[in-house]
């Protein structure tokens, strides 16, 4: 780059004299043999005694510009891009007939313009990342793999980041309504695209701190805010300005660091508990939960900016559904304690580890499967012999229900058997959702 400049400067130096000579119109005031370094004032055509152009001709054509070589040379880029005035263009083109070095450069720059292409935003196939990684690891197995329970989080954060890369500055402020089911009714909270990423950043921070990494919430704010909603609200409150696209980098850095850290410590820390304030999850389940949340909020964002967004890969989806199915018995028990689910009255509470009254959850579509949900006690084991009800629904529909985006009454589920059990399970699924 600098080489090219030096070269041109040399040309300029050499050519300047010539240009100035012409600029001084060959008048003899210059005196001696040394060309003047400073151009003499240019004589006006009216004062030169030469014939003036015809009036109509002068009106129809712009007055020819007389420019010096360095000026013309500096204009070559703009000229090649057709970004000069008509008069400048004419002056450059006239000059090109006389100046070899400018003509060469002009040709080169025009050629370069032909290489400019509009950048077509090519959407990468979201499945390509997984195929690239799997293919590479087939050729050389990693010595430090990403644990299976962390791959959904790795894949979902990468997908969301690819979406964020494509959206414009203004879209970061597009309104988003976070929706969830508070146990009794649907509820929501208004924020923006950037606000959603701040939410993901602060709640992922629960995993980060459990791993001994830095908490994105600092100081007192972090101490007081233990659950996801409180942390998010605290973060939103603590920043003077509403979040902007600058939130993307810290969110992405944290998610990369989490994946990297669990790869090194995975086998020993998989059972370590991550506190959500009101409850705890083992690290490997917390990572699935964060993957699920990442997808759900990526959908919120995609809706807000009118982008298409696909569900996770079947394997990820299956793990997410499995987590929800495993959490249901405890949520059912909790709801029962609060009088929100039918009492287990008159039914035998079975000892922990024994088969109990169960609902068969049949999930259709990619990533689906069947789960037996024990209804009366989190300690009981789901049992086909004690099956009292059967529901069937699509995997994505089930996840939307678990995210609180579909209400339990509206969930499109095929139902068979004990209606009360079915209602309890659908409401418990919706109650898995939170801000």
């Amino acid at each position, binding site marked *: *780059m600098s080489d*090219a*400049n030096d070269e041109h400067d040399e040309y300029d130096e050499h050519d300047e004299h010539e240009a100035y000579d012409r600029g001084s119109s060959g008048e003899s005031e210059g005196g001696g043999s040394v060309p003047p370094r400073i151009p003499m004032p240019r004589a006006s055509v009216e004062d030169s005694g030469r014939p003036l152009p015809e009036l109509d001709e002068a009106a129809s054509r712009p007055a020819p510009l007389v420019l010096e070589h360095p000026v013309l040379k*500096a*204009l*070559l*880029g*703009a000229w*090649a*891009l057709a*970004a*000069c*005035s008509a008069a400048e263009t004419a002056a450059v083109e006239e000059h090109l007939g006389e100046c070899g070095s400018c003509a060469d450069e002009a040709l*080169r*720059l025009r*050629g*370069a*313009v032909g*290489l*400019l*292409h*509009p*950048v077509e935003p*090519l959407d*990468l*196939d979201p499945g*390509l*990342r997984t*195929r*690239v*990684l799997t*293919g*590479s*690891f087939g*050729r*050389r*197995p*990693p*010595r*430090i*793999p*990403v644990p299976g329970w962390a791959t959904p989080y*790795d894949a979902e954060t*990468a997908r969301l*980041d*690819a979406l964020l*890369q494509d959206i414009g500055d203004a879209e970061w402020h597009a309104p988003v309504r976070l929706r969830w089911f508070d146990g009794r009714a649907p509820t929501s909270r208004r924020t923006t695209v950037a606000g959603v990423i701040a939410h993901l950043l602060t709640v992922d921070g629960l995993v980060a701190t459990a791993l001994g990494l830095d908490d994105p919430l600092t100081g007192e704010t972090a101490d007081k805010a233990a659950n996801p909603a409180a942390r998010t609200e605290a973060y939103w409150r603590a920043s003077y300005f509403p979040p902007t696209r600058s939130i993307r*980098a810290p969110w*992405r850095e944290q998610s*990369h660091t989490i*994946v*990297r850290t669990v*790869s090194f410590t995975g086998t020993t820390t998989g059972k370590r508990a991550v506190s959500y304030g009101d409850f705890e999850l083992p690290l490997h389940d917390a990572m699935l939960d964060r993957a699920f949340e990442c997808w759900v909020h990526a959908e919120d964002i995609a809706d807000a900016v009118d982008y298409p967004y696909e569900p996770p890969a079947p394997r990820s989806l299956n793990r997410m559904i499995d987590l929800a199915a495993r959490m249901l018995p405890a949520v059912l028990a909790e709801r029962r304690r609060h009088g929100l689910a039918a009492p287990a009255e008159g039914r035998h509470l079975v000892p922990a580890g024994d088969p109990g009254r169960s609902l068969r959850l049949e999930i259709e579509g990619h990533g689906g499967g069947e789960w037996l949900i024990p209804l009366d006690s989190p300690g009981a084991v789901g049992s086909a012999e004690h099956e009292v009800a059967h529901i069937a629904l699509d995997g994505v529909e089930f996840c939307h229900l678990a995210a609180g985006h579909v209400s339990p009454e509206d969930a499109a589920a095929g139902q068979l058997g004990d209606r009360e059990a079915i209602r309890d399970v659908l409401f418990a699924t919706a109650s898995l959702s939170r801000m």
Partner: protein
Amino acid sequence: MATKDAPPRWDRKMQQRLARGEAAALGELYDRFASLVHALAHRVLGDERAADGITREVFAHVWEHPDTYDPKQGPLRSWVAALTARLAVQRLRATETAALAQGGQGSTEELERKVRRASVAARADYIVTSMPAPLRAALELAYFQRRDYRQTAVDLGVTEDEARRRLRLGLQLLSTAHDTGAPPEPAGPGGAV
């Protein structure tokens, strides 16, 4: 793109992590360079699936041979771009040669011209994405938004002199895409496209 100004430290650490066999590192490498790799491959091959294939090859190559990158020779980004261009041009030549051998239309000279055009186009794309942002912004305004250099100067908040300088310098950089005949060799000293 914010990523292109990443410090060389990132490049060195990435290479070490890949060499160590850290799966998460390859994921991060993909997140940073996949769109560059895919777009370059697509420019050369003009086909989505072929570009997917080159993307897989490029990352598998880096994963299998992380030590073939020498941080002293330049940024990882340039090396990955050069590797992509080389593999994509190889693929183009192979498919075109096969088509010709099966009695397809055209001559060897046409094939060479096509291959050369494609590699120049790939180099040009890479130069645009990696040139200093002020130059890219000026070209963007003058070429895609059809602004003249005076309007460009106003839009960028610079003098008209500076706007002219940026347009000329940007095109000078871009014109170097024509300079090398052979597709760039990633491992060589001139590896940076």
